């Protein structure tokens, strides 16, 4: 409640003067983002030397509440940081479409989809979040497999896992499904090798057929992986953050479906496994004819509020915040996969290189399209699948019902 007051308070003091822009975010206060902000400011000062920029770092847990108060009041920050997906789509009525200002950045940046509503773009992506399959090259070598050529099909993959387990004792997957997150990563990580392009696109567009053989196949694979002990023991009592990632880092499992930015990602794994020993592979092909792609969405991005005095100046600040120089600093310091596809990431190791080369052909992650109610139910059903107390058909039936209701 106290937050509401401060939101309108700092807002009213801001946009009165035309030569000052106020930015709200939850990142600019972090030491890892300092260079990024500095570079963006320098870039913007070149274009508008007379405009001052003020960054206001809000606490993330109250961020959207504070922003809601500013939107209600119709005044406040000029440039606003958003999470991609639902968070920005729920608030586009307060934002300016940026299409005419950011046309030049279209090709250079990736992840626009998460900041688009009704064919209009409301923010420029800063980072990307996705679910690559990481693998431990040392274990591949120990098992006598070629780490440069991970399996292309599911059958090869399972055969490789059997070899790794028999020769090194490591399990195939590090899986943490205590909170029910494991299935979300599984669904998004493997879907591009199971669903046809048409099925994939229909899913993202909201036309989901839970009873189709290929969708059921994803859950069938989940169950089989559990039954044939591809996962670590006790997956239902292992926390994904960070117990399952710890299993992967310590070499107790050869693969993990992780994240691209923030945590459980290449930067964490590089520290333990070294960049040379960390690989990223595409989803093994289950359905012949499918083309595996990297599942990812825009992570965070900056948008412009409707009430800003000069939209062009504010949009220029957004462009500075997504300039190559600034994003390069963010990538290097914070370890986030930046939205800029031209950044040279070879220094960070082969895993990052693979991911960035996959960005062009990548598609949105399947689980991001689901409602929180559907995700909650899917988490519980996935635990039941692992313990054997529910069938795949029953899962499909329940998911179809909740997805329709939601």
């Amino acid at each position, binding site marked *: 409640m106290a937050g509401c007051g401060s939101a309108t308070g700092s807002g009213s003091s801001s946009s009165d003067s035309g030569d000052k822009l106020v930015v709200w975010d939850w990142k600019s206060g972090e030491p890892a983002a300092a260079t990024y902000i500095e570079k963006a400011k320098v870039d913007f000062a070149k274009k508008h030397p007379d405009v001052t920029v003020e960054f206001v770092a809000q606490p993330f847990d109250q961020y959207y509440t504070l922003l809601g108060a500013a939107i209600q009041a119709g005044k406040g920050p000029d440039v606003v940081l958003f999470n991609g997906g639902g968070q920005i789509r729920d608030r586009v009525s307060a934002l300016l479409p940026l299409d005419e200002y950011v046309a030049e950045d279209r090709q250079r940046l990736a992840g626009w989809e998460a900041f688009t509503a009704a064919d209009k773009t409301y923010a420029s992506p800063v980072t990307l979040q996705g679910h690559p399959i990481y693998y431990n090259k040392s274990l591949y070598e120990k098992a006598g497999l070629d780490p440069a050529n991970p399996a292309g099909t599911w059958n090869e993959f399972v055969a490789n896992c059997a070899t790794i387990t028999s020769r090194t004792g490591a399990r195939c997957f590090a899986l943490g499904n*205590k*909170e*029910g997150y494991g299935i979300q990563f599984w669904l998004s990580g493997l879907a591009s090798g199971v669903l046809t392009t048409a099925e994939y696109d229909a899913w993202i567009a909201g036309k989901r057929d839970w009873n189709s053989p290929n969708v059921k196949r994803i859950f069938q694979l989940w169950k089989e992986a559990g039954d044939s002990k591809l996962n*670590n*023991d*006790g*997956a*239902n*009592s*292992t*926390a994904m953050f960070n*117990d399952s990632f710890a299993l992967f880092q310590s070499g107790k499992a050869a693969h993990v479906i992780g994240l691209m930015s923030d945590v459980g990602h290449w930067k964490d794994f590089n520290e333990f496994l070294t960049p040379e020993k960390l690989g990223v592979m595409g989803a093994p092909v289950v359905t012949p004819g499918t083309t595996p792609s990297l599942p990812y969405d825009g992570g965070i991005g900056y948008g412009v509020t409707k009430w800003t005095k000069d939209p062009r100046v504010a949009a220029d600040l957004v462009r500075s915040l997504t300039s190559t120089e600034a994003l390069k600093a963010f990538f290097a310091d914070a370890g986030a996969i930046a939205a800029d596809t031209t950044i040279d990431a070879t220094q960070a190791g082969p895993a990052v290189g693979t991911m960035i080369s996959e960005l062009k052909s990548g598609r949105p992650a399947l689980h991001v399209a689901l409602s*929180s*109610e559907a995700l*909650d139910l899917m*988490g*519980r059903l996935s*635990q*039941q699948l692992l*313990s054997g*107390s529910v069938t795949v058909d029953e899962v499909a039936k329940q998911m179809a019902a909740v997805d329709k209701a939601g």
Partner: protein
Amino acid sequence: MSIRETVSSVRPAPAGRTGEAARGTLGGRTRPRRRSRSLTAERLAPYVLVAPAVLIIVVLRLWPLLLGVNFSFTGDGDRNGTAVGLDNYLRLLDDPLFRQALRNVGLLVLLLPVAVAIPGLLATFIFLRVPGHRLYRSVYFFPAVLSPVIVGAIFNLLLAFDGPANTLLGSVGLGPVDWLGDPDVAMFVVVGVHVWATFGMALVIFLAGFATLDAALLDAARVDGATLPQTIWHVIVPGLTRTIQFVFVTTMIGMLTSMFGLLYVMTSGGPEGSTYLPEYYIWIQQGQMNRPALASAASTVLFVIMLAVGLLQIRLLRRAGRVD
């Protein structure tokens, strides 16, 4: 003069029970008219004195409670603010997760005697001065000062699938148990940890109760040659009826309302939703699913359950106390 009269006539009221105060006021009405002014003050005084307490209860407790109940009859999302009748309650009944939460409440009620017996028995041993009772007194109380989050984190480590508990089982040739991943085991584990973490407080209450026990009765029992079980059953339990009653009610309330931290850290309501309790359900609906009205309905159900269980317990124990 009138003030002195008022003071002198009011004085017994706070000390006495409400019944006596009411009788005094009623009696005042029949007294002669010339003393009416002081009698008005006398009549009003008790109300003025209880007013702050009543106001606090009404404004800060009952009024929000009514608002919450009222809110539970409105809708969420698109139907925000509109009256939806009993829709939220029907939805709760329909939700297997909420039914699981209620079943778990039933399980807690069944496990309650165990949760009370453990501190009761241990307090008895300390009271009977078993060797090392001073050490035990502090050791037993120690977990009570730990926050549920810390307790949960400790047991998460101990009970992990590849953790020390399973290593110990393995060393004696028993298969590993997925303590927090098996839906048939997890709830008992969490309740067990909760009892471990909180029984120290009940133990202290029991020890305080023992202090009021008549030592002569115990001596008499000893002289009569009563065995330990006989002493406990025929002397200690009847003497501690009120304490036991109090511990029963507070333990029940503690189980139903303070297990959130443990659940959150140890199981997140899982596996398979098997460790859901109403308060965890309320939090999920309010915080994760953004359905405050449904959460209010669940809160109202929890409140009614607590009220019913509490009243039932007090009645049962009072009857038991009378028999003894």
